[in-house]
Structures are given as C-alpha cells and as structure tokens.
C-alpha cells in the first residue's frame, strides 16, 4: 500500500519504509540493511564515527541547522562522568509532522540512530523525550525497543562489543517549550520546562549536571545511515552547505499534503505545484511559511526561484527551520493566522523572561483587536516595536519565533491589516 502520498522524484533514504509495517520489527529493519550503521560504528570506533558525521556535513534537523558532527565533538573525550544523549522527539512546532512518522513507521531507525549517537559521544544512557500526546507513537517505539533489548541490540554488551548503551523512553506532558534543548533537559530532570542560560552549554553541563548532547529524531535517523555508508556517501545529495536529504512536511492549501523526502536544494515551487499536486481549486498562492511557524512568512514573489536548503531559504528572506512548508492560498486570512500563532506562543511561553511573557500576550491582544475591526494604524507600529523588543532579549528564542512572523506579515501583507483597520474588511476566509 502506498504511503499516503508518494512522488517519483523523491529520494527516499529516511522514508523508504514509510507505510510498510514489516519495517517495525528487528527482522524487517535488518532486511533493509538496518543495524548495519551501529555495527560499522563499533568497528571503526568513536572518533572515526564522529569524523564520518562531520564529513557528511549533516546539519541538525530540529530547526537550528547546527552541524551534528561538530556538536558531537564538543563532548569531553574522557568518561570521568556519565554522558547522556537526549533525543528530542517532542515534535510540536506548528507545521511539523516528520518525527512522528519516522518513529511510528521505522522505530528501529531511531533506535539505531540513538545507538550510533550514544556510542560516538561516549554515552551509556540515552533518553528519548517523546511528547505526551504521542501515545500510539510511544507504543510502537516501546515495542520496538523491547524487541531490540531482547535481541541484544540495546542494553549491556551490545552486539558483543563490550559497549553498554541503555535507552529509556521519557514521556512528556504537553509543553512546546520542552522542545527547546535546555527546556527539554529541565523537563527530563522533573522540573518545569524552563530553558536555561547558555553557557554553560549542554556538552559541559547538561542533563543531571553531566555532559549531554541533544539531537532531533531526524538527525539521529540520518546519522544511522551515515554510520552505515560513510560521510562522503551522504554528500551525493544536497548542496555544499546543506548536504543530504530532508523530509519536507507540506501542509495547508495543497492537494496532496504529506511528508516528502528530497535532497536539500529542491525548488519550492516544484514541491508545491508538481509534487503536492498544486493548490486546491486552482487558487493562487498567497504566502508560504517554509520552516514551521517560527520563521518569517514569504509572499508569492519570494517563493519564485527559492530553493529549499538552508542558504536558499535564507536568500529568500526566511529560514528553512525544520522544513515544514505551510502553504497559504489567496483565500487565507493572514491577520487571523498570525493572531492564531501569537495565541500559541502566548500559551506556550514559559514565563521566565518578561519580554516573552508580556510581549506574546500583548501582541495577541493587539492582533485580536485588529481582527475584530477595532484596531488603529498605530497598532501596527506598536506590534513592530514590541516584536523588536522581543528579539534577542530572552533566554531562548521562543519570543523571537513570534516576532518574526509578526514583523514579516506586517511588512508583506500590510494591505490585509489596513483593510481590517480602515474599512473593517476581512481579506480571505480561511
């Protein structure tokens, strides 16, 4: 059975087994070469594994795009204290739905990635932080993990190598901020999920005060393949600065939304018009949010010629983030959607930093006022001013994440705001 939607142009590395329940078992995963990555890593050693990942140019898939091999190399080389690998499966960036699909279709892909990562950084315990809503996902992963333990792939003396790596599933309880790496550590330790000031960086003082590395699900899944095939193999796809393949989560106004895997650098318009079957009812494209709700909004002109790699989206005035492409057609009500996003950030702000706690709340109220037809033109200046004060002034980037869509939407869709403010006219219905 075809996974919801497939496309001939896809390059499927991570998503090859999506839609195939057989790959959820150890035998099924081994049949497609699975667990070859950890076997090869154990053979070539820690340093060589990190070098492989460095050579691959793999960049963190959780949104920041930090080079993974470099991150791993920050970990102390001696094991005087316990090291921890934390896998971030707290997927909750609006527009993003790739980690859930990776885990529920290929749980062993993630387990193997966790083993490779743990081995490379010298961790004997890996915690997978799953968001609390992922009941089915957690159950699928739990069964896979039990089987992996039974097969001697996880636990003590994995694959007869003398290396011990334990994996524990940690289920969260509903907080977007726990997807921020230091917020995740706080939450794992049984605290409120409040982010911490860096430095110290997690590689020095992380979970439980010990050296820790936090990687996204997709990053670790890719690392499993890189460990199996080597770093150069991964560079056959993508661009110089953005090597490899990436899952693109396309949602919103397209005929065939879903996860599609392409080499980085794939043209945005081709993704929307060809791969996803275009926009329903032949409507015109109005805007795209290319990397999850936390990045600047692009208008239709920005989209033309934009390629989906870190540098390509940057050149178009936004950020690739976690490649969650939210497509909005001409019927979209930008003001309403920005207000909805603001509401989300106000709800999810942990409240530690004043610019974020107050800024997200007041921005939501002002946007609501504009949406209700009670706004003034001064409100737009106030929103921009608040947003600027929310940028770079807090411990984590949650408040920046709201500032970017607000500033970019006012810049690019000022007419939509003005139509509401001056004439009480709503532009778009959705």
């Amino acid at each position, binding site marked *: 059975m075809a996974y*919801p939607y497939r496309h001939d142009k896809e390059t499927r590395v991570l998503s090859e087994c999506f*839609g195939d329940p057989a790959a*959820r078992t150890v035998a099924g995963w081994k049949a497609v070469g699975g667990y070859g990555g950890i076997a090869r890593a154990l053979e070539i050693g820690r340093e060589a594994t990190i070098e492989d990942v460095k050579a691959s140019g793999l960049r963190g898939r959780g949104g920041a795009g930090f080079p993974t091999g470099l991150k791993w190399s920050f970990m102390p080389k001696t094991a005087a204290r316990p090291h921890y690998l934390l896998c971030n499966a707290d*997927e*909750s*960036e*609006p*527009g*993003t*739905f790739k980690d*859930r699909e990776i885990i*529920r279709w290929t749980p062993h892909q993630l387990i193997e990635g966790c083993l490779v990562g743990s081995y490379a950084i010298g961790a004997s315990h890996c915690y997978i932080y799953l*968001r*609390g*809503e*992922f*009941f*089915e996902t*957690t*159950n*699928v992963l*739990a*069964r896979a*993990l*039990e089987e992996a*333990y039974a097969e001697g792939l996880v636990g003590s003396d994995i694959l007869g190598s003398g290396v011990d790596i334990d*994996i*524990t*599933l*940690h*289920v*969260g*309880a*509903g*907080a*977007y901020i726990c997807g921020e790496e230091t917020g995740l550590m706080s939450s794992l*330790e*049984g*605290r*409120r*999920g409040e982010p911490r000031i860096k430095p110290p960086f997690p590689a020095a003082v992380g979970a*439980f005060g010990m050296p820790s590395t936090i990687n996204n699900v997709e990053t670790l899944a890719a690392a499993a393949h890189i460990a199996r095939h080597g770093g150069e193999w991964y560079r056959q796809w993508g661009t110089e600065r953005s090597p490899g393949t990436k899952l693109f*989560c396309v*949602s*919103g*106004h397209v005929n065939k*939304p*879903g*996860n599609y895997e392409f080499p980085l650098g794939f043209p945005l318009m081709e993704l929307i018009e060809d791969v996803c079957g275009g926009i329903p009812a032949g409507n015109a494209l109005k805007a795209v*949010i290319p990397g999850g*709700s936390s990045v600047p909004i692009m208008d239709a002109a920005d989209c033309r010629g934009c390629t989906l790699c870190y540098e390509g989206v940057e050149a178009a005035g936004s950020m690739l983030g976690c490649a969650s492409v*939210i497509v*909005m057609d001409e019927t*979209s009500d930008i003001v*309403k*959607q920005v207000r*909805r*996003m603001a509401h*989300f950030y106000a709800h999810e702000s942990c409240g530690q930093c004043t610019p974020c706690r107050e800024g997200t709340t007041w921005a939501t109220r002002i946007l609501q006022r504009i949406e209700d037809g009670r706004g003034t033109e001064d409100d737009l200046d106030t929103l921009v001013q608040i947003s600027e004060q929310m940028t770079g002034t807090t411990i984590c980037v949650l408040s920046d994440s709201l500032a970017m869509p607000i500033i970019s939407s006012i810049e690019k869709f000022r007419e939509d705001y003005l139509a509401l403010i001056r004439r009480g006219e709503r532009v778009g219905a*959705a």
Partner: protein
Amino acid sequence: MSEVRFRNPGWAGNTGEFDLNEADVRGTGYVGERALDGGHPSVSPSLPYMFVKKDPDAPLFEGPYRERFDKIRSRYPTARAALLPALNLAQELRGHISPETMDEVAGLLGLSDAYVRGVATFYTMYNKRPVGRFLIQVCTNISCNLCGADEVLAAFLEHTGTELGQTSSDGNFTVVEAECLAACGFPTCVQINSRYFEDVSADDVPAVLDRLKRELNRSF
C-alpha cells in the same frame, strides 16, 4: 451513517475506518497486548491507557502500578526525574491530578508539595480537574486552521452540546482546543483520549461521536 476513511493509515489503520474498540483506545490494537506492569523497564515511564476506567480514589501505587513506579525510579539518576512519569501514572489511574494527588506524589518522591504543584501546573496534559470520559482535543493551530479546524471545533461543541472546556451533563464529553498535534499534513487532527483522528472534517463529526457512543455502550 457513512464511514469515515483514514488517509494516513497507521498500525491500526487496516480497517481503514474510525472503528474503535477497547483494544484500539488502550493501544493494544497498535502494539499487541501489553502487560499492565508496563513491560520492559526501559518503557516503564507511563503509557497512558486513557480508556481504562478511572478511580479518583485509587491508591498511589499498588500492585502492577507499584511495579511500574519502581521501574520508573530505576531508570533515572535522581528521584526528581521520576516526577513527570509518576504524575502520568497517577493520572492514568485517577483521571485527573487534584492538589491532593500532587501532594501524595510529592510524598512518594521526597519532594515538597509546593514544588510538585509548581511542576504539575506547568504542563497542560495534567488535567487539574475531572474531564469527561472522552477528552476531545481539536487542533486549531495554523495548518489545521487553514483547512477548517474552527468549523470542526464548532461541530464538536454543537453535537456534544457543550461549551468549550466544559463537560457534558452525562459526563461523557469534554471538548477543548489543542495546540499543534504534529499531524499537520492530515488536517484536522483531533486527539480523543490517547487516539489521534486525522482528516476530520466538520461533516465527519457526527460519525466520530457515534463511534464513541457505541464504544461507551460496550465498556461501561
């Protein structure tokens, strides 16, 4: 009543329908029968079997739940780290986390009552007050919103006869708005207890509720 089709079939999607039975909602339909003690210690952190009957006065913790609690403790270097899984476990048993439950969990882990209240109130998945047998969480964030989530939410409120966040008079349904559930490609996503319903349109809502009601008749 017309059948509602799945477009994103998962473990239990072979039926291709929103056809719930107890095994589905307890998760056994996805992953095989699981031991009540949680199975292997690595997965001891609570798996919220949301549809088991709740008892607000259930003891913390006895029998298989005590086993799971002990396993949870064994997976972390500190007692504090077991707090979230322990609260998950308490909610699984009792259905919601009352201030008294928070204090009891604090006692079990050697933490102060105030500390546990601070943590428990930080997280949205801990129900601070009782909810209906079915907690219906409709995602209204951007991707679902673009595809009509507001209408889906309105339909759930209309057909359950409830106000947002209130429980229906028969104690069956509580409808709330949820933030992004990470199923943006399959809008609108609705989480009902521990189960995701994807591709739900406003027209599907009566069929979904009908299924839930039949499930109630089977189990209660």
